[in-house]
């Protein structure tokens, strides 16, 4: 066993061990629990960094696995690790983001009664995601894929004693399950069709197999899982609701773990998907529509976390578009940079939320947001990156995505993708201006309303140490947004297709268009929200129909309520009727019949000994007569 394999195993084992320790032994000791979890993720982070240095930098690829369950004439169950640039880079991203979120959470979650449990779940999340990333086998990947879903469920519903988070957790779990059914079927069909489950073998077999029905079907089924997990197309509505979880959880969920799992899967199995061009074309369009739709939703949302959630959906769509257009490098690069700046945005928004005790951007604006320096730095840096302003990370990755699309698809899709980039800049800076430039009278009201005791209690559990714990990860991530962008070459040379890389500051015609659109978006946001005396009302919000349409998830939730949920409820009512009337009726009938039969038979048991004797005599007499009549006597 080589050092790299050992490191990969250690990276997975440490969070699992921490999770078990915390949930079993350390429930009552929050500080120890947090320390354990952070130590475990530090180990993972170090191991992942080592792996990147050993595997990704020299650009090698290997699979080490051990056969666990041999199957006659089949692939058997082999578990192991896959070590190639994609996996180890993703592992490093996951470990880094999880670690940052954990450190931040020691401040954010301070004083919560479920503090230890929270860190246990975070460690579980880290383990599940690292396992998913490093899985060498499709079945293994499926297991961790479901574990990621479980961990998200637990964390979204962390405050399960309240109604909304519990409902949001259920919704997230169920909606991703819808896709996961397809994923499971796809994996099973794949294993059945190809007879192998190890990822490189699968990819080799899929690309070399004759064109037929199986590969597109498998690709379609797997994409169902991706669509659910990465909150695309019709299955995105769980993600905005998932904001009910603690803000650091949202940061984790949206950057490096849950939703990234879907994109990562497409990147992981990209040759398989590339062998089904029709499916990829569908994915491209779906992602495009999702990107634009979620951007419009972000334009009217007033909850800062919902804005960020919609922007996540939109950015995930960009990643999937890049992958659908055939560029793993671009998609994965965007995934990496997005992980950095989206975590940053969530964490800094968490600082404001913690400060103002509200998710509403207008409320936050009323609570002296500028006093939160780390939050301001983080929010601005993250927003610049999200909007794609040079030289922040988002610019480079988005440029690569749009460049890749320009080479392969072009036309309407490309134009709409550029439009989406402009919209991104608009809603991002709408958020920035709404949050940070609060000169509305609301501010005075809020101050009057806020009672002194409230502020005191707030300050009490929000000490300087907590501030520091929250500030440092934010500042570190903010610095990362300036660095990550220069890694484009690293990805471009190591992930398929190997592109000639022009260097980070290559500015083509597309980049100019994009920058112009971004500038226009920011300018519009400034005009509507930023400048002194602005109405602070966006153009979309002025049209009531648009506002309610965008603000209500394009009525998708209502559509589901009117169709799928209603049908399901009708079906369950029918099942209930069947259960109560038919099944229970049958068993009740049997019981009643038994009771009545017993009543009738119990008349024999009348308690009179002499009646019993008479019956016995009659029986014996009948027997005797019968035996003599039939000649039964010998």
């Amino acid at each position, binding site marked *: 066993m080589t050092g790299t394999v050992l490191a990969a195993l250690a990276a997975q084992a440490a969070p699992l061990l921490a999770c078990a320790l915390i949930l079993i032994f350390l429930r009552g000791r929050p500080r120890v629990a947090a320390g354990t979890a952070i130590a475990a993720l530090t180990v993972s982070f170090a191991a992942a960094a080592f792996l990147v240095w050993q595997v990704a930098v020299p650009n090698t690829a290997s699979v080490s696995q051990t056969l666990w369950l041999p199957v006659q004439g089949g692939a058997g169950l082999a578990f192991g690790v896959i070590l190639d640039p994609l996996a180890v880079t993703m592992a490093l991203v996951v470990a880094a983001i999880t670690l940052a979120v954990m450190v931040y959470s020691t401040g954010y979650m301070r004083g919560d009664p479920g503090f230890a449990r929270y860190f246990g779940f975070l460690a579980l999340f880290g383990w599940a995601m690292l396992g998913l990333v490093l899985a060498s086998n499709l079945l293994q990947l499926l297991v961790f894929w479901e574990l990621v879903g479980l961990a998200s469920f637990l964390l979204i519903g962390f405050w399960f004693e309240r109604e909304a988070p519990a409902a949001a957790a259920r919704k997230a779990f169920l909606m991703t399950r819808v896709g996961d059914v397809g994923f499971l079927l796809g994996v099973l069909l794949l294993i059945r069709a190809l007879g192998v489950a190890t990822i490189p073998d699968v990819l080799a077999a899929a690309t070399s197999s004759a064109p037929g029905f199986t590969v597109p079907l498998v690709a379609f089924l797997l994409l169902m899982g991706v669509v659910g997990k990465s909150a695309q197309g019709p299955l995105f509505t769980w993600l905005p609701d998932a904001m009910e979880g603690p803000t650091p959880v949202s940061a984790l969920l949206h950057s490096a773990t849950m939703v990234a799992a879907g994109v990562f899967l497409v990147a992981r199995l990209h040759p398989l998907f590339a062998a089904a061009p029709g499916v990829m074309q569908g994915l491209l369009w779906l992602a495009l529509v999702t990107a634009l739709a979620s951007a419009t939703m972000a334009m009217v949302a007033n909850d800062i976390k919902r804005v960020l959630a919609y922007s996540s959906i939109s950015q995930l769509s960009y990643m999937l578009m890049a992958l659908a257009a055939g560029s793993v490098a671009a998609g994965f690069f965007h995934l990496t940079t997005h992980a950095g700046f989206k975590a940053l945005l969530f964490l800094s928004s968490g600082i404001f939320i913690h400060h103002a005790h509200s998710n509403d951007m207008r409320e936050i604006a009323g609570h002296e947001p500028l006093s939160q320096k780390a939050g301001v730095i983080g929010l601005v840096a993250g927003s610049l990156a999200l909007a794609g302003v040079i030289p922040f990370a988002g610019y480079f990755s988005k440029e690569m995505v749009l460049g890749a699309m320009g080479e392969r698809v072009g036309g309407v899709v490309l134009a709409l993708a550029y439009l989406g980039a402009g919209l991104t800049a608009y809603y991002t800076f709408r958020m920035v201006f709404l949050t940070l430039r609060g000169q509305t009278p609301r501010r005075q009201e809020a101050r009057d309303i806020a009672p002194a005791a409230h502020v005191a209690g707030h300050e009490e559990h929000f000490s300087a140490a907590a501030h520091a714990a929250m500030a440092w990860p934010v500042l570190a991530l903010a610095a990362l947004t300036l660095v990550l962008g220069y890694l484009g070459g690293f990805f471009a040379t190591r992930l398929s297709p190997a592109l000639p890389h022009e260097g980070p500051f290559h500015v083509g015609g597309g980049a100019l268009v994009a920058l112009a659109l971004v500038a226009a978006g920011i300018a519009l946001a400034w005009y509507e929200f930023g400048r002194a005396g602005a109405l602070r009302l966006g153009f979309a919000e002025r049209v009531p129909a648009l506002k309610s349409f965008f603000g209500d998830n394009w009525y998708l939730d209502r559509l589901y309520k009117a169709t799928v949920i209603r049908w399901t409820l009708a079906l369950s009512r029918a099942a209930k009727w069947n259960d109560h009337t038919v099944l229970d009726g049958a068993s009740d009938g049997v019981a009643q019949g038994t009771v009545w039969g017993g009543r009738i038979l119990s008349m024999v048991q009348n308690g009179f000994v002499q009646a019993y004797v*008479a019956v016995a005599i009659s029986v014996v*007499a009948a027997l005797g*007569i019968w035996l*003599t009549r039939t000649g039964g*006597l010998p």
Partner: protein
Amino acid sequence: MNWAGAVFGASAATALVGAVCAVGLKSIFHNILGFALAMLGVAGVFLSLGSDFLAVVFVLVYVGAVAIAMVYAVMLSVPLDQPARPRSRTKVAGAALFAAIGAAAIWLVVRSAAWPPATGRLDVAAAWAGYRFLRDYVLAFELISVLLVVAMMGAVMVARRSRASAEER
């Protein structure tokens, strides 16, 4: 008719009269007396069959012991001064019907069975019966002894007053 036939006729008549008294009379004492008479008759029937030992046993056990025990039990418990309830006619009719059915069935079976041909009476010495008891049927003999001991102990246990009920009173 030889003397055995005479003995059989007399004792069978005695037994049936005694039996009718034992079940038909109202007073429980008369019943017991009728029972003793019936058992004497049965002992006579055994005599007519040449089983004199068995006849003596019947007299000793039934007329001597069982009837006396019944009298004791009746004296211990039955309130003799209370007038007995009148018998229900339907119950009498039903009992007679079922008894007739039972007896008819027995007779039917007896009549239809292929009995070995009668060979005339074989007198059996009591000594021979005792010999067989202690040789071929020794297990049954011992079991009867055990049964009697157990029955005696059981009777004592059932009939004696339990400590709890004694304290109640």
